[in-house]
């Protein structure tokens, strides 16, 4: 059963990812991204991580893709980049090389550690989640015990981000031209 | 070796913190001058003279109270500076540094009196005073950290003096001077730290920068040699020894007169003094190991400096290259590593400071009048300026090493020592003496002899009273030390003897003395006719305490 779910969800994930790359229309690409994110959410559920699944749907499929669509709409749906031109020469082969390299390195790291998951699990008891408890509860428990400081600092972080966004979004007064313009005027 | 430490403990200090005061007076003076209004150059000058002369007076007081018979460090002071690192404010003087301290003490007030800067007197005097403080600090430091601090800090005022008050391509010369010297001392810092770390392991006590303790550490031969190389590089750049000398002609030529005088008189001695105090003393075995290299480079420097000097068209550059040759002699004497050689080397440090300093002063005066240093432009000056010509002759002869003048004594001792240690070096080096006569006399002939061939040379003004007094003040020691070097030698000798004993004890190799050699050789050579005076002089020193 689990395997079947994995196969179907995996197909959705991969199909969506291919769609993101393959669709010429950016709106279609964004929508297939939604499919991918849903697929991942399903995989989370299959792993008994309901909270993550919900977050995945709400935050990614909900907020972020909508934001994407906003941006696409603002920039104009009909515009498409000419993909035949490489902005930086040799960029693509290098990117491929780097991608393969990172993949290989990650695989080596994961596989070489893979044999000993058992011992790792034993070590992880400090954060092991009691199985009878719903994961949302245990997550909440962790957030208010071991990671309460991180939670509080996240609050600061969000405030900082909001302040920063406001500062940056503020426009310079209309009567104040840019510094470069000042200098040009002087010259 | 316990002698050193014992001396340190028993040394009476007639004037507490004399050496600290010696370093602080000009440093404070520098700050004071910096605070005087720019509108009052005369006040700046007087204040500068006052402070540097006070330091000079303290140096003379030091000389007066110096215990002639004692070869160890005197007037020793020791205070903690950075506790965690074993760094201390440790000062002391022995025969090796004594005369360099006196030279630094006296040359600066003299330069301030003799030379007026062309512009911006206030910062000029402030930098000069800082330079004096740094130079004095180098010669009295018994702590490697303090030594390094002073060794580096003197770069800053000199850099400004050359760069701001120099001539021609001064910024290039200043930059080259700074970077070359800093390059040398960069590795020395690593060497110092390596020495302190390995010595701490060898002694078993905590880390210390006290050279008296570091000299006692048993280092592995190769370690010591490696660290010695790091030190030697710094000193070799500063001296400068032959292949590293290229900054010197530029710096000397472009520097203002005062800068040249100080550079020749004192700054170059930081390197040669470093070799004696830190090279031979801290790394006896490594010094002996490296001696052939330095003897060779010394000889090469003598010949190279002489040959290149001969070919110079610029009078100041000629004197600069003659410095390379003279410093070759000092290196030769130092690495002969026997009593005559080292004593001669130390004497020659002072002598070179006096004679080359005087030469730069005279060249500066010529430049001031004619605004050129081209030898081809100058001729027949003897006719219009006979007094200057006479003075120039004496100074030049001292530089050549004519008997009866101070240059002879040092060069003779060096050649004597080198001959005993390794005769062929002495033979070749002696050629350098002849070459010195050649280039200096030839230059003199071109500049002073004959009839003036241009209006400017005809109307060349002779020495003014102030200038005459200035040069005259340098002529006195030039003549006195040439005729009667005994008081100087008898103060240097015991310390050299202690140093050589230390080297012998550490390496097990006796210094290469001649067949008739005893340690009194030097005194026999120069002091035979003055036995009475010697004891008189020694007594005089004691009575005053």
């Amino acid at each position, binding site marked *: 059963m689990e395997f079947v779910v994995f196969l179907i969800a995996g197909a959705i994930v991969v199909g969506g990812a291919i769609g993101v790359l393959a669709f010429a229309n950016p709106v279609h690409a964004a929508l297939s991204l939604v499919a991918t994110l849903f697929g991942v*959410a399903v995989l989370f559920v299959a792993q008994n991580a309901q909270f993550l699944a919900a977050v995945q749907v709400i935050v990614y499929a909900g907020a972020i893709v909508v934001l994407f669509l906003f941006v696409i709409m603002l920039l104009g749906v009909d515009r498409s980049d000419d993909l035949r031109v490489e902005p930086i020469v040799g960029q693509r082969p290098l990117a491929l090389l780097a991608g393969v390299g990172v993949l290989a390195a990650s695989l080596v790291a994961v596989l070489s550690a893979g044999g000993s998951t058992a011992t790792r699990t034993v070590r992880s008891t400090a954060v092991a989640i009691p199985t009878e408890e719903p994961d949302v509860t245990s997550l909440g428990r962790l957030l208010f015990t071991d990671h309460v400081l991180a939670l509080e600092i996240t609050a600061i972080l969000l405030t900082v981000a909001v*302040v920063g966004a406001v500062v940056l979004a503020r426009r310079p007064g209309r009567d104040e031209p840019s510094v470069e313009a000042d*200098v040009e005027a002087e010259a | 070796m316990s002698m050193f430490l014992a001396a340190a403990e028993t040394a009476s200090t007639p004037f507490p913190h004399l050496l600290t005061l010696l370093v602080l007076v000009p440093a404070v003076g520098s700050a004071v001058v910096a605070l005087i209004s720019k509108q009052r150059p005369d006040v700046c000058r007087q204040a500068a003279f006052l402070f540097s002369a006070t330091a000079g007076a303290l140096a003379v007081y030091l000389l007066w109270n110096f215990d002639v018979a004692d070869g160890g460090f005197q007037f020793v002071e020791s205070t903690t500076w950075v506790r965690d690192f074993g760094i201390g404010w440790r000062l002391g003087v022995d025969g090796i540094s004594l005369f360099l301290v006196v030279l630094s003490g006296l040359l600066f007030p003299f330069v301030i009196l003799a030379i007026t800067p062309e512009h911006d007197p206030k910062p000029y005097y402030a930098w000069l005073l800082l330079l004096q403080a740094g130079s004095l600090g180098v010669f009295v430091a018994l702590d490697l950290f303090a030594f390094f601090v002073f060794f580096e*800090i003197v770069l800053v005022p000199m850099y400004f003096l050359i760069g701001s008050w120099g001539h021609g391509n001064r910024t290039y010369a200043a930059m080259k001077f700074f970077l070359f010297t800093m390059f040398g001392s960069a590795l020395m810092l690593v060497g110092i730290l390596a020495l302190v770390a390995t010595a701490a392991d060898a002694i078993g006590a905590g880390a210390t920068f006290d050279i008296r303790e570091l000299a006692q550490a048993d280092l592995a031969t190769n370690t010591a040699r490696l660290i010695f190389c790091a030190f030697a590089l710094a000193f070799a750049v500063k001296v400068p020894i032959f292949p590293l000398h290229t900054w010197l002609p530029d710096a000397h030529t472009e520097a203002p007169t005062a800068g040249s005088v100080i550079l020749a008189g004192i700054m170059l001695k930081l390197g040669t003094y470093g070799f004696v105090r830190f090279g031979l003393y801290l790394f006896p075995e490594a010094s002996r190991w490296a001696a052939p290299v330095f003897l060779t480079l010394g000889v090469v420097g003598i010949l190279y400096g002489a040959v290149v000097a001969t070919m110079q068209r610029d009078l100041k550059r000629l004197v600069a290259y003659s410095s390379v040759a003279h410093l070759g002699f000092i290196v030769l004497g130092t690495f002969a590593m026997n009593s005559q050689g080292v004593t001669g080397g130390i004497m020659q440090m002072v002598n070179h400071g006096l004679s080359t300093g005087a030469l730069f002063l005279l060249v500066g005066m010529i430049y001031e009048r004619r605004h050129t240093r081209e030898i081809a432009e100058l001729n027949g000056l003897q006719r219009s300026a006979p007094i200057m010509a006479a003075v120039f002759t004496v100074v030049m002869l001292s530089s050549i090493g004519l008997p009866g003048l101070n240059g002879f004594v040092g060069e003779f001792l060096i050649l004597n020592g080198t001959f005993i240690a390794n005769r062929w070096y002495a033979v070749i080096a002696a050629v350098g003496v002849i070459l010195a006569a050649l280039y200096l006399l030839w230059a003199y002939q071109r500049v002073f002899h004959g009839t003036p061939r241009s209006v400017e040379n005809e109307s060349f003004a002779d020495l003014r009273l102030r200038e005459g007094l200035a040069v005259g003040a340098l002529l006195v020691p030039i003549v006195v030390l040439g005729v009667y070097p005994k008081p100087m030698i008898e103060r240097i000798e015991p310390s050299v003897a202690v140093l050589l004993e230390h080297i012998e004890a550490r390496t097990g190799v006796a210094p290469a003395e001649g067949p008739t050699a005893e340690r009194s050789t030097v005194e026999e050579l120069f002091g035979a006719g003055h036995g009475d005076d010697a004891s008189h002089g020694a007594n005089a020193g004691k009575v005053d305490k």
Partner: protein
Amino acid sequence: MSLLASLAAQAAQPVTPVTSVLVETPSVDWWGLLPLILLAAPAMVLLHASSLLRRVFRGFYATASVGIAGTAAAFAIVQWFRVTDLDGGRGPYTTVASAYTVDGYSVFITVVLCVAVIVSSLVADGYLRREGLDGAETYALLLLSASGGVVMASANDLIVLFLGLEVLSIPVYVLAASHLRRSASQEAGFKYFILGAFASAFFLYGIALVYGATGSTNLGTIRQTLQDDPFVDGGALLLAGAAFLLVGFGFKVAAVPFHAWTPDVYQGAPSPVVSYMASGVKAAGFAGLVRVFDVTLAGQVRDWQPIVVGLAVLTLLGGSVLAVAQTDVKRMLAYSSISHAGFLLVGVAVASPEGAAAVLFYLAAYGLMIGGTFAVVTAVAGPGEQATGIDAFRGLGRRQPMLALGFTVLLFAQTGVPLTSGFFAKFGVIKAAVDGGWYWLAAVAMLSAVVGAFVYLRLVVAMFMVEDIDPHHGDGDVVAATPAPVAMPAALTLALAATVVATLVVGFLPGLLTDLAGDAVPVVLATLP
């Protein structure tokens, strides 16, 4: 569909009635968190007050910022005596579920950060008014960023460390772009943000891998785990994680080859902000680096040391050599700050208490030097920061000798001339390297310092040794337009004077600071839970 089904299945299950589960929250030592709170909370208050109240007097925000940072520093100093006094005091401890350490080390960095904020606030006061940007946001963001730095220095948990890093960085991204009328500033902020976000991603991935290898994000637990079983079979995982963490830190402290953002950002960002970047951000970055590598991964030193040594060499040489080629003073200082990061990396690489103490000393000394240096650059660059070429400094020694002299002291301090704090900073690092047997590394560092010296000397030459007359534009002509005198606001002058005096005092009596740095370090190396 499948999701809905599964949710439905979930709902169908008999859910255990959630009775009020009693969660025992960890005990919090508020006293220990006080400096952090004193930085973050008043910053928020300042922000609110600025929108609600009229400005009380000119320079109120800067004064408030200095006051806030000063108060935080004062409390940190009070804390210092408690945590470093091992006999009578409390000694170092962790709090909030051992996620936050309070030890001499974190307190030291806290004070360094506060001083960095104070200096750049003083400089920013005149700058913002000159540029017509006066407002509370700059100061609030500076303070918030510093609070992030405090979190980084105190973090005993990788997640907290990461959050600290973000709280540190985000305000600085914004500040870099805060000159809204200068496109260079916008570009700087953008570049810094993109590369910084990239670095954060690396860092986060590193945390994940380290967690995978050791089963914890708590530094103490990680260290214990690795101590119990140094040859964990997840070695590759751990090392990959450590490598990614190093990349993240490398970006933050501008180590070659992760330095590419530095020159552009330094050049474009407002100078007071750059001052904070070079002093505060660097200090926080190294604080995290030392705690993660020198302390937590101390057992793996054989594995990471060669890499950090390599980074140090590249950074030293890259920074100093590239600095030589620059003609813009801010770019030059950017590269020189890279070279200084190289020195700091040497201190990290030797992985000894001496090395860590040297890093602390260096951070404190360098923070002051570079703060003063950018104060001068701010003043000289003039409105819109147009005059940042070397030519802007030409003849300054004659026109404004005191300013030039102060600047010279700071430049010589960065060169490493004795009797300035910069010399002893280098001395400490070199000593740590030599004591650790890294002779060649010490030699490379010193040689790079010589190369770097050229850069500072060029500025000194421009100030003192070049006439105002440009040799290329007509010879002998007395300059028609003598440049207008550099305006020196009082606060900026105060910052400059204070940093110069501190540089000299520490230079003459380095013992004042070495004792403190020495006290701060062994504690951290010895007492993680």
